[in-house]
């Protein structure tokens, strides 16, 4: 088992930069998720680890060894592809033992390893079928089986769940993590789905336009997003952000937003003052926004609120059964989403409301660099 390290890796295709100066360490036995919007370079990064693409610049190490010029077959990694890439002309057994045959393992040993892998993944009864006779979920298992028989240094997975239906995807998510724990292997997992990233990764690396935005354990990424991009990419609905000038004394700053002001806590005031920014991007998660009556300030679910919030008008309300997303618009057109409970009456569409912010839960970003401002 091994670690995978990318050191200042860049990949260009002609004039487009797919991966831009990416440094990344995947620790031994870690489940690292590479996540980002499509075209962010995550698949290219994975393909460079596999050896299917050569980096234009930088170094790729697997288990300490520089593998830039090592053929994919000699890198000792196994890959699971999005479309599984099963060999349609071979039976499941043949597919699973393909990597073993290329290693010329003897027949009995091969038989034993294949049977074991088939048992692990519940494929025993399908060994003599062809991939075309299997369902999507079964094919996905065959692809996994083909990867695990190798006992590789690392598993590389490129959106392996995206072709499954929603229910199966959720179930397989758990199974994959469980499988990784049991085998104790390093996994590099590429996805565009932030839910997969949050639920599966022991750490998440968020890529944007080929560059690393942030890497860390899921709770940390959610609590302390390092940039506006991460703040808005992770979390559903995404974090609300609005820019405004900073006013007031260093110990008691206020941020001026369209239609009102937010008074910062003393701690936040010091942080923001320390950054020296005269204008700032404020971020707040939808669950830390309350929707209050425009006149008396009562919250939508009936509790007494404050009348000092920012005025907004309700665009629409998405009722999900267990919670509601209230989509509002500020005076200048900025959209803000509040996540509220389903108790109490629903704020009618187009009604005027005041949005209250939990000022202890604000995030601040430098508008010039879009990076997080920390105390």
């Amino acid at each position, binding site marked *: 088992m091994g670690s995978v390290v990318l050191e200042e890796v860049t990949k260009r295709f002609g004039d487009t930069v797919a991966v831009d100066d990416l440094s990344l360490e995947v620790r031994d036995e870690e489940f690292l998720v590479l996540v980002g919007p499509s075209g962010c370079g995550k698949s290219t990064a994975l393909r460079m680890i*596999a*050896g299917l693409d050569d980096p234009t610049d930088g170094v790729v190490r697997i288990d300490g060894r520089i593998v830039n010029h090592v053929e994919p077959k000699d890198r000792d990694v*196994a*890959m699971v592809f999005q479309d599984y890439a099963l*060999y349609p*002309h071979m039976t499941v057994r043949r597919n699973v033992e393909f990597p073993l045959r*290329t*290693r010329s393992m003897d027949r009995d040993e091969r038989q034993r390893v294949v049977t074991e892998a088939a048992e692990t993944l519940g494929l025993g009864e399908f060994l003599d079928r062809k991939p075309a006779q299997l369902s999507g979920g079964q094919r996905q298992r065959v692809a996994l089986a*083909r990867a695990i028989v*190798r006992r590789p240094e690392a598993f590389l997975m490129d959106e392996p769940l995206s072709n499954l239906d929603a229910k199966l995807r959720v179930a397989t998510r758990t199974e994959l993590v469980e499988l990784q724990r049991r085998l104790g292997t390093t996994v590099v997992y590429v996805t565009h789905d932030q839910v997969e990233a949050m639920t599966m990764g022991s750490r998440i690396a968020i890529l944007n336009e080929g560059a690393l935005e942030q890497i860390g354990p899921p709770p940390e990424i959610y609590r302390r997003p390092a940039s506006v991009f991460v703040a808005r990419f992770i979390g559903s609905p995404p974090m609300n952000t609005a820019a405004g000038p900073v006013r007031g004394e260093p110990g008691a700053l206020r941020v001026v937003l369209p239609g009102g002001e937010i008074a910062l806590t003393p701690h936040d005031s010091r942080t923001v003052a320390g950054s020296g920014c005269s204008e700032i991007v404020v971020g707040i998660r939808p669950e830390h926004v309350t929707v209050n009556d425009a006149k008396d300030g009562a919250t939508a679910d009936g509790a007494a609120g404050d009348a000092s919030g920012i005025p907004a008008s309700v665009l629409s309300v998405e009722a999900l059964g267990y919670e509601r997303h209230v989509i509002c618009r500020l005076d200048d057109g900025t959209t803000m989403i509040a996540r509220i409970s389903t108790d109490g009456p629903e704020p009618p569409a187009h009604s005027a409301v005041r949005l209250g912010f939990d000022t202890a839960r604000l995030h601040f970003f430098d508008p010039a660099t879009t990076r997080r401002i920390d105390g």
Partner: protein
Amino acid sequence: MTALAEPTSPSREEIRAWMERARRRRRMRQSGLALLMLSPSLVIFAVFVFYPFFRNFQLAFYRTPPFPGLPKQWAGVDQITDVLGSAAFRNSVWVTVKFAVLTVPVGIALGLVLAVLAHQRLRGITVYRTIFSSTVATSVAVASVVFLTLLNPQIGLVNYYLGREGAQSLLQDPTWALPMVALVTIWQNLGFTFILMSAALQAIPDEMLEAAEVDGAGPTRRFLRVTIPLLSPTIFFAFVVGTISAWQAFGQIDLLTQGGPGGSHGATNTLTYFVFTDFFERQNEGTAAVLSIALFFIVLGLTLLQLRYFERRVHYER
């Protein structure tokens, strides 16, 4: 005011019978329409395929008189056994078998090799793709004339390079005539085979070969274990179609050798060419009919054999 008669509701059986009638009417109307739409092609097939096909069987039973105008004589199966037992017939079948063996596998192998070479993602590869497929745009006549010039005993480059200027053309050499005709045929068909193989190669997902690469398979193993099986339906198709067209080869033989050297026992006198000369030169429509029927059954038999024995090794799964 007279009371309206109480409308009796139809029984279940009546409804069923009525629906059955309606269904039959609809089916009649539909098959009538189908026939109407098929009729133009049916007429063309009838005139140019079905009638000549059956007429051929009739011709085979009559001996063609030595001079036109004399009545035809019923010969029964005698003419058929005469022709099929003749040395000229055996020669032409043997020549055609050799011709097919020379052209089909080599042509497919070459087409596949070129397709694999042109499948690389390299700068300027489209130029090669165009060159490789260009023979599709040439006719058999053009190909034949090009090679006729190359093989010309006086001015041809082939004799020049072989150091045998002025000696007879390879096309007149009993040993080399058939291989030369086969060469022209392979060259002429190469563009088509190349396009066929290229299209099939492009249909193989890159992921499949990349998976094999990560799984530890080198280029040879990837080609033999993944590419070739996935191409097998196309290779099989090219094999069957190529064999049929080898048995029907005519243009290049007519232009290059006229079946010779060696007259009706000529080294390049393939069965199709034999039929042609029998009819148009010797004007013996009876024996030509027997030969063409033999050709039909040979091609039919070969195709059935290929479907029976080779298709089992073809992977159609996707």
